[in-house]
């Protein structure tokens, strides 16, 4: 390289580089703000705070009261438990469209006259166990067909969506089954130190989910299976068994959600859990979990759930109709995902 070339090069470099360096500086500032464990969810925190400000301005004290906060959390808890389960499946490279249907089936099965009679004679935990087992069984069917039958998760769980809700309708004969086991409602629907048990369950599930995903070999394997199944297989991980377990896990989460719904509504029906699949997937995705698998965040999912529930609450307090609410939801999903992608790109990781 000649001296002359290098001179022109450096001149041009400064002239071409100057403006981009400026924008680079402010962008890096943003990056610093967004990166790091706490800041990664900053976009979500801001979104949630904005919603709260809107709530405060439009509904004032009715929004910020302790009771209203608990209402929001109680509403969030059921879909929250489902979403934590969904986070695992999506992180593991799958999808579960049948969560709502499994919730319905579990709630109906756990509230049949037979189950309730047995529970009344023995212990209310019989209802809980029934719901969890039904959820686990549905998950096992999903997982086995997907992992060992090599069918697409989308198709298998779509079939389960139709099948499980249909079965729920047959069992309940499209009637609402009122829960008569009072201890069940008293315990699950009650409060401990003023905090609804439902909210406590959600908190426990979220913490357990976080530990499972981030601190255990199960979590590591989930990330590997979702990120590169072939690499996971060649590294000696039993990918099929692991995939099956993931669907069983979300099934159990649905069973638990059904228990919580039974306590909150004091009834089991085949219409429980309508459209939960969409709400859960939306919460997971705006939380920052990759829809293609390989990266998942429980904290993000919890924020995603809280954002949607707070939105619903603010709309309800202001007596706005559900259609407007649906539009707002759609906008939030798009904006949140766009924002997440920006942050991810700045952090040197893929969208």
């Amino acid at each position: 390289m000649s001296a002359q070339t290098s001179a022109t090069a450096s001149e041009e470099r400064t002239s071409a580089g100057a403006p981009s360096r400026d924008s680079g500086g402010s962008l890096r500032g943003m990056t610093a703000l967004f990166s790091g464990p706490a800041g990664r969810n900053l976009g979500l925190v801001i979104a949630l705070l904005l919603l709260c400000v809107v709530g405060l301005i439009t509904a004032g004290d009715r929004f910020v009261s302790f009771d209203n906060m608990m209402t929001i959390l109680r509403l969030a808890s059921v879909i929250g438990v489902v979403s934590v389960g969904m986070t695992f499946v999506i992180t593991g490279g799958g999808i579960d469209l049948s969560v709502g249907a499994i919730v319905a089936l579990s709630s109906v099965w756990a509230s049949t006259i037979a189950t309730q009679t047995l529970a009344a004679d023995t212990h209310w935990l019989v209802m809980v166990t029934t719901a969890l087992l039904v959820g686990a069984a549905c998950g096992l069917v999903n997982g086995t067909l997907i992992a060992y039958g090599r069918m697409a998760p989308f198709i298998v769980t779509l079939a389960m969506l139709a099948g499980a809700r249909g079965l729920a309708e047959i069992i309940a004969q499209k009637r609402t089954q009122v829960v008569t086991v009072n201890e069940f409602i008293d315990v699950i629907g009650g409060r401990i130190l003023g905090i609804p048990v439902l909210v406590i369950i959600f908190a426990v599930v979220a913490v357990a989910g976080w530990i499972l995903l981030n601190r255990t070999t199960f979590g590591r394997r989930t990330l590997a299976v979702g990120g590169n199944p072939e690499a996971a297989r060649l590294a000696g991980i039993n990918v099929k068994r692991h995939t099956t377990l993931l669907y069983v896990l979300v099934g159990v989460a649905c069973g638990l959600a059904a228990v919580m719904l039974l306590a909150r509504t004091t009834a089991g029906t085949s219409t429980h859990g309508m459209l939960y699949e969409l709400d859960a997937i939306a919460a997971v995705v705006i939380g920052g979990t990759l829809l293609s698998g390989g990266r998942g965040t429980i904290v993000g999912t919890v924020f995603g759930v809280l954002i949607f529930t707070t939105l619903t609450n603010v709309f309800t307090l202001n007596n706005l109709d559900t259609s407007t609410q649906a539009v707002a939801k759609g906008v939030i999903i798009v904006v949140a995902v766009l924002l997440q992608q920006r942050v991810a790109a700045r952090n040197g990781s893929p969208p």
Partner: protein
Amino acid sequence: MGPREIQVTAPEGQEPLLRMSGIVKRFPGVKALDGIDLEVRAGDVHCLLGQNGAGKSTLIKVLAGAHQPDGGTIRWQGDDIRIVNPQDAIDHGIATIYQELDLVDGLTVAENIYLGHERARWGVVARAEANRSAAALLRRLGHPEVAPDIEVGRLSSAGKQIVSMARALSHDAKLIVMDEPSAVLDQEEVARLFGVIRELAAQGVAIVYISHRLEEIREIGDRVTVLKDGRTAATGLAAAETPTSEIIRLMTGRSIEYVFPERSEGQRGETVLEVSGLGRPGEFDDVSFTVAAGEVVGLAGLVGSGRSEILETIYGARKAKAGTVTVAGRRLRAGRVGAAVAAGVGLCPEERKSQALVLHESVARNISLASLGRFARGGFVNRRDERRAADDQVRALDVRPADVQRHVRTLSGGNQQKVVLARWLLRECRVLLLDEPTRGVDVGARSEIYALIRDLAASGIAVVVVSSEIEEVIGLSDRVLVISDGALVHDSPADEIDEHQVLDMVMEGEAA
């Protein structure tokens, strides 16, 4: 900055085809390119050299429009241009074969070749015509056996490399950039590739050629540019006149004795791995051999001769149709990776990106993936132990940057390869199967890896190595097996055979 060798190369006043000057590219936390200069003339084969992570791939991605530079200028045929995206680069006549293959597995060979510039009539893809011209390109590359209408996902990695090359040729480019095209090719195919490169150069097409196989440079290169830590260490060197030792010194800043470690004599243990009559119709037949504890056995053969398939079958990733695999006296169930893993077999697979790496994850997590159990108590991962073990591996293999928290996808190709190898070195295996362990690794790190493999063997592990470089197979192994056309044609101690004999045997099967 290192010493600069400046040689006036062309007649005064003749504008080079490409002149990149002062190119700067930053990534979060690293300055990958720190003012690089590169001049390429029409009809020249310009070799770009540098250690793993020196910035070679980043530079050519800037040229290909895949990255936007943070500074510097690109002059193309006398005009200053900005290359805003890959399509723009292609429109200017710059075609690129990337280091990591970028083909769509679900499309056919012809569809991949013409992706983005489909042969179409009134918007309808002219399949027959595309297939015909794709076949012509493949013939020109010396690979008439690659059918234009089969899915790319079914090809071997060498086959995919060939499709990538055909794609670059299909653009009628003035400059073709090749990022380590020879890493997955065997001698024969490299020779064919060089034939095509010479032909292109004679037509006035410029080639930028990246490789870690320094002997190739002298064979094909006209000019050499050496990068070091994101800077130009030397540019425009005449390839024929610069000694290899000088190039290595420019690349690494020190002189490296490029030798294989001593073989350990005598102390061979008992047989650990016994393969007998192993076969998969259409891939390989009746393969039998044994490997003793402490022994390194090398498998030589052409790409597609069945080498990788044999390893994957031993590991259970492919199901054996005939024969048995026995590890320490216990027969493994065919087609079960779990059984092989439980018996202490490890496989470092051929293709790092599709078969080995979890790209979203950190270096540490990728290294620990196959030995998670070692760091776990009651299902909980002890992250401090994990990080420490990963740190040790990263230091031993000289992964750069030496930061185990980085995402694997931000590492350069050669450094990713070291991560894959680290995973299997960390795992305590009885039998270690290594498929192209030094693919894309630079000269400096290579010697380290050879020494590590030797150490492993000395500690009583049975090692099987597959490599396209015959020199590597012979230099590293105690015993050499030659695979030709799916059959085991030779088995002898490594010091009783030389490169030419192996090459002859390998070719014979090809001719038959």
